[in-house]
């Protein structure tokens, strides 16, 4: 039988039982759509988190107080178990390191901002002029914190876009006096709205000089020290230098944790990549189920068309012709299902992106290819058994069935 005839014959046979065909096509398409949508979610989550971390800054090294790793026995640990706090002087000492371009101390707390009878709860970040360039923040109006001695703490503030809108409305904010806690500060700059920033919504942030923040919250410790390395290659070096310097300053006790953005990024990348693979695997199970359904449908078709198979044999069809006809039908069911599922999945992912524009829900190429491939392969593999059964039917017995 010619290929075109085989395909036409298979198509006619499949469309001859529309409901059964539609159901198995639907099952297959749900499987493929599941692969597309679930991997798009997984990969979207990975991209989202990686994007968030990247937006923290470039070549970033972060110093946290306290040691989170478990080291060997250290005599210093035996004497004191409470970690030494990070201070502004610690941060200042890091500025001299060769692999470091910028350093910004960071202390955070919550307070309230008041102006013209309006009061609002805010998050206050105490830092220095370097904070904005390290975190890649951009100003919409005015200037950043002044370049000054870190211990000085001029009464100025840079406010987030949302705070500006809520406190000042359509008025000019730069140059206005506001009250934060018990201090009167002059607004010198407004941040460009960004809406993201991992746990810290920069639109609702007020940045003040670090010394001012420390006196506001009555503390002399830091929450973090942010370091920008000279280059991507210098990140490791900056990390080691920072660790060594702080260890020396803390009397040989390694009581800080230094993480690099790269390491965090790599970890999240790996973690969420594995998650994506896992959901792809789960979705693949539904593909296998769809394959079994195709097999079931084909087995029913063979049983139902026994008489026809007998007739085809009587008319001179070889076993191969019959096998091919049934295989083509199974392949068609899964191919149409796979294609439909792909479109369905892409439509679902498109809808996701419409509803959650910040979430980059795109299915990875490997998942799409693997999903389609698995669908076609299972359809074919599960089609072989029914096709062989059809080809092996005894024509006399088959003809009597009708």
């Amino acid at each position, binding site marked *: *039988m010619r290929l075109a005839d085989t395909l036409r014959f298979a198509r006619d046979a499949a469309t001859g039982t529309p409901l059964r065909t539609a159901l198995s096509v639907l099952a297959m398409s749900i499987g493929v759509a599941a692969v597309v949508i679930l991997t798009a979610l997984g990969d979207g989550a990975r991209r989202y988190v990686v994007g968030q971390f990247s937006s923290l800054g470039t070549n970033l090294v972060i110093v946290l107080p306290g040691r989170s790793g478990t080291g060997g026995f250290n005599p210093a640990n035996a004497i004191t178990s409470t970690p030494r706090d990070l201070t502004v002087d610690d941060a200042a000492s890091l500025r001299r390191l060769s692999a470091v371009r910028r350093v910004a101390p960071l202390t955070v707390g919550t307070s309230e901002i008041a102006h013209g009878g309006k009061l609002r709860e805010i998050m206050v970040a105490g830092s220095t002029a370097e904070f904005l360039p390290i975190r890649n923040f951009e100003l919409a109006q005015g200037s950043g914190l002044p370049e000054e001695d870190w211990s000085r703490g001029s009464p100025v503030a840079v406010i987030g876009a949302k705070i500006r809108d809520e406190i000042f409305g359509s008025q000019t904010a730069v140059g206005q006096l506001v009250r934060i806690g018990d201090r009167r500060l002059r607004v010198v700059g407004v941040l460009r709205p960004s809406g993201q920033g991992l746990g810290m919504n920069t639109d609702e942030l007020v940045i003040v000089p670090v010394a001012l923040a420390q006196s506001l919250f009555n503390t002399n410790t830091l929450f973090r020290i942010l370091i920008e390395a000279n280059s991507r290659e210098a990140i490791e070096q900056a990390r080691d230098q920072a660790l060594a310097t702080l260890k020396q300053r803390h009397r040989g006790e390694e009581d800080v944790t230094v993480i690099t953005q790269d390491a965090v990024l790599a970890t999240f990348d790996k973690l969420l990549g594995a998650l994506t693979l896992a959901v792809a695997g789960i979705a693949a199970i539904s593909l296998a189920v769809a394959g079994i359904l195709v097999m079931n449908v084909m087995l029913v078709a063979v049983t139902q068309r026994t008489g026809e198979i007998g*007739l085809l044999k*009587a*008319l*001179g069809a070889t*076993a*191969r012709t019959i096998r091919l006809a049934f295989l083509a039908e199974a392949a068609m069911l899964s191919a149409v299902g796979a294609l439909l599922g792909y479109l369905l999945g892409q439509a679902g992912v498109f809808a996701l992106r419409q509803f959650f524009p910040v979430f980059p829900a795109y299915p990875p190429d490997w998942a799409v290819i693997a999903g389609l491939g698995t669908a076609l392969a299972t359809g074919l593999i599960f089609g072989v058994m029914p096709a062989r059964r059809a080809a092996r039917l005894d*024509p006399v017995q088959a003809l009597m069935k009708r």
Partner: protein
Amino acid sequence: MPLIELSGIERRFQLGDTTVHALAGLDLAIAAGEYVAVMGPSGSGKSTLLNLLGLLDRPDAGSYRLEGRDVTTLSPDEQATVRSTRIGFVFQSFHLVPRLTAAENIALPMTLAGIAPAERNRRVAQALKDFGLDRRADHRPDQLSGGQRQRVAIARATIMQPALILADEPTGNLDRHTGEEVVNLLEALNASGVTLVVVTHDPGMGARARRQLVMEDGRLQSDTQGGR
């Protein structure tokens, strides 16, 4: 040389513990162009004989020579080729493919044999005309009357220009009048040189054949022409 030459054909079936001899020691020769009716009570082996002649079944013993060639030893695929090119079947229940049109049903043997569509269309158009079906070409079997269905089936059986047509109760599902038409059609084919073997219960139809074989218990009980 006879078209069909059977010698010492045995066919046994296992039914539970008992072995049924559907055909036992059958010798038969049919010359090209003959018109043979096979008759006998149910279970006498008529259908088994027809299946054997059509290469749908294999004998347990004996030899079957078709056009001088021993066909019992052929592989299943070779037998399929012989069925495709040399043998046409007409069944009691027509055995049309319900989702195909009359024209597609007639073309089916050519489709299976891989004949080019242009040639297929030419031959189907001719057959539709010959069998008075040209206005029914696009009808599906369920839109055709019984007589029309059997005419489609006969057109299909002859489309590959076989040497032998095997008909199993071809009028069994038809009323007298349309049955008569179908028999006339088959006889006309026989007159044009095709060998015709008809299995029938109907003595009237059997009497019209030029040679009658009566079977009982897997053996030839009588043969109006030499035979054994």
